[in-house]
């Protein structure tokens, strides 16, 4: 069942690219949608299990499906579904739409592979796959800014990849193999050459920091998010960066590096830096997408902070916040797509009184922003609460306080933006817009319902996110 998740998009890809005239762009989108939603259904229906593929040589490949992977798969399915719908509505040209869906399927394979694998080098390969698909998609319309954004992302991503590979080389030296169990073995208590292994770990993690867009390695992120076409931003911000950087970090730090104290300390510092820098930078932005990009940096900081803390509760909070962030960022970028389509710009200075003209978009955006800021009873409130509580319990009082203050800061700038753009006076640019059509609104509405639903039902669902710390399947 598990290889299916990686192979199904491949099959879909091959079928879609057969030279059959009847395939129009809607069919492409529908197939993509089926695969993405099917992924969610598949995870829901199957109990967790560990799949081993054994090979003639007697060696075992690992694909793992623990709770963390399942949550990620659902998030991937959701964000990609939203991206496909948004892409279908905003990319009108036939061949571009086809390329878009093709690349979405490639990134689906890349991301599914990343969350399911148990080998450091294969992790690199599939992260690069996701990356390559992202670069191409950012430059889909080949506009001047988009090419620049894509190139910056590419260079930094490639350098990060090289760092990861250096780490792999060092691990090869000490562990003799690159799969998770061997590498854990090399870092464990009685292993030979612990020094080299620790250097390897550090180098590898630095690579992941760049990929995930954490301060101070976030240079490429705002450019990439804001210059990408709308559908691509949904995918990029919603899930691709999360999987490549943050998920990989969680998986590696928690399971492979066994929560090394030095690493945890670095994560705490970088996390808090990301939160504060992201929040402050978002304040000064006039472009909607750039503001959302800096907000992403800030929210990822919360996740990293929790990972650095390391307790079971903190990890659960981190994963929950990751999931929530995928939901509300996809939602916000879908809204941004709707606004961009109707208004023709994402410059917030020109937006005023959108609430009256685009009521549903404004409502769903408000829900997402409140969830990001951590207002009850939305899901964002719960995940932030867990993270702050976990930090407090672990004695990291200072960090907890800064996290809460930054949350208030987030609330402040979001409310400020809300007031101006959605509820203020109707500016001339906005005077003639109408609400976006139903199809474009659908992902926004559905994702908003997910945020509300998760928030209300959280006490019952807490279990599903909590069993992370206890899984150690190898």
């Amino acid at each position, binding site marked *: 069942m598990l290889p299916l998740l990686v192979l199904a998009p491949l099959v879909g890809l091959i079928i879609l690219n057969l030279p059959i005239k009847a395939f129009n762009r809607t069919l492409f989108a529908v197939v993509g949608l089926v695969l993405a939603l099917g992924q969610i259904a598949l995870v829901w229906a199957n109990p967790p299990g560990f799949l081993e593929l054994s090979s003639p040589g007697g060696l075992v490949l690992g694909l793992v499906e623990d709770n963390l992977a399942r949550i990620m798969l659902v998030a991937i399915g959701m964000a990609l579904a939203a991206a496909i719908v948004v892409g279908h509505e905003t990319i009108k040209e036939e061949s571009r739409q086809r390329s878009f869906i093709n690349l979405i399927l490639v990134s689906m394979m890349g991301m599914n592979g990343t969350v399911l694998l148990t080998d450091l080098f294969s992790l690199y390969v599939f992260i690069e796959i996701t990356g*390559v698909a992202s670069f191409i998609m950012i430059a889909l319309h*080949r506009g001047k800014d988009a090419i*620049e954004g894509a190139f*910056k992302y*590419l260079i930094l991503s*490639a350098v990060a990849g090289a760092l990861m590979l250096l780490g792999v080389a060092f691990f*090869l030296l000490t562990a*003799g193999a690159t799969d998770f169990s061997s590498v854990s073995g090399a870092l464990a208590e009685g292993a030979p050459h612990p020094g080299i292994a620790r250097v390897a770990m550090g180098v590898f993690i630095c690579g992941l920091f760049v990929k995930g867009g954490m301060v101070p390695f976030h240079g490429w992120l*705002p450019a990439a998010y*804001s210059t990408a076409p709308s559908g691509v931003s949904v995918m990029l911000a919603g899930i691709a960066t999360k999987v490549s950087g943050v998920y990989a970090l969680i998986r590696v730090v928690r399971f492979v590096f066994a929560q090394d104290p030095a690493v945890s300390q670095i994560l705490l510092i970088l996390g808090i830096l990301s939160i504060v820098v992201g929040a402050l930078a978002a304040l000064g932005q006039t472009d909607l997408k750039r503001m959302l990009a800096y907000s992403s940096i800030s929210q990822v900081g919360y996740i990293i902070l929790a990972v650095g803390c390391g307790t079971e509760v903190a990890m659960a909070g981190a994963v929950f916040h990751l999931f929530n962030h995928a939901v509300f960022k996809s939602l916000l970028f879908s809204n941004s797509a709707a606004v961009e389509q109707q208004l023709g710009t994402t410059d917030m200075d020109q937006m005023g009184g959108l609430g009256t003209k685009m009521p549903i978009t404004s409502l769903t955006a408000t829900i997402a922003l409140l969830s990001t800021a951590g207002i009850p009873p939305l899901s964002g409130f719960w995940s932030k609460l867990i993270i702050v509580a976990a930090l407090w319990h672990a004695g990291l009082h200072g960090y907890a306080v800064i996290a809460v203050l930054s949350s208030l800061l987030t609330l402040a700038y979001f409310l400020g933006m809300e007031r101006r753009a959605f509820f203020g006076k109707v500016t001339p640019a906005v005077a003639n817009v109408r609400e976006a059509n139903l199809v474009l609104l659908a992902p926004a509405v559905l994702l908003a319902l997910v945020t509300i639903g998760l928030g209300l039902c959280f006490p019952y669902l807490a279990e599903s996110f909590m069993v992370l710390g206890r899984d150690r399947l190898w």
Partner: protein
Amino acid sequence: MSGELLSFYIAGIALTLISGAYYVVVTTSLVRTIIGLELVTKGVTLAIILAGHLTGRVGLAQSLVITLIVVEVVVMVVAVGLVLSAYKQNGSVDTRLLRNVKG
């Protein structure tokens, strides 16, 4: 392998990596950035094979390197595509003209 030779190998790898990284950071031409990236890749390739040689896992190291080369080639081709598109848009591959998008 004697310790002395090993230190020379490490020096060689490190110097290649530094050259490549320096090039990527300092240069003002998009094409040269890609050359720098290629140099970094060579350093990493050598590092992986060296690790394989020292531990005797020659087959594994070579498999990793082969995959690595394929991945890098694709990334490079995409980079070249972006550079050519940029050239078509701007008439130049100078990075100083591309400071449009902040951040």
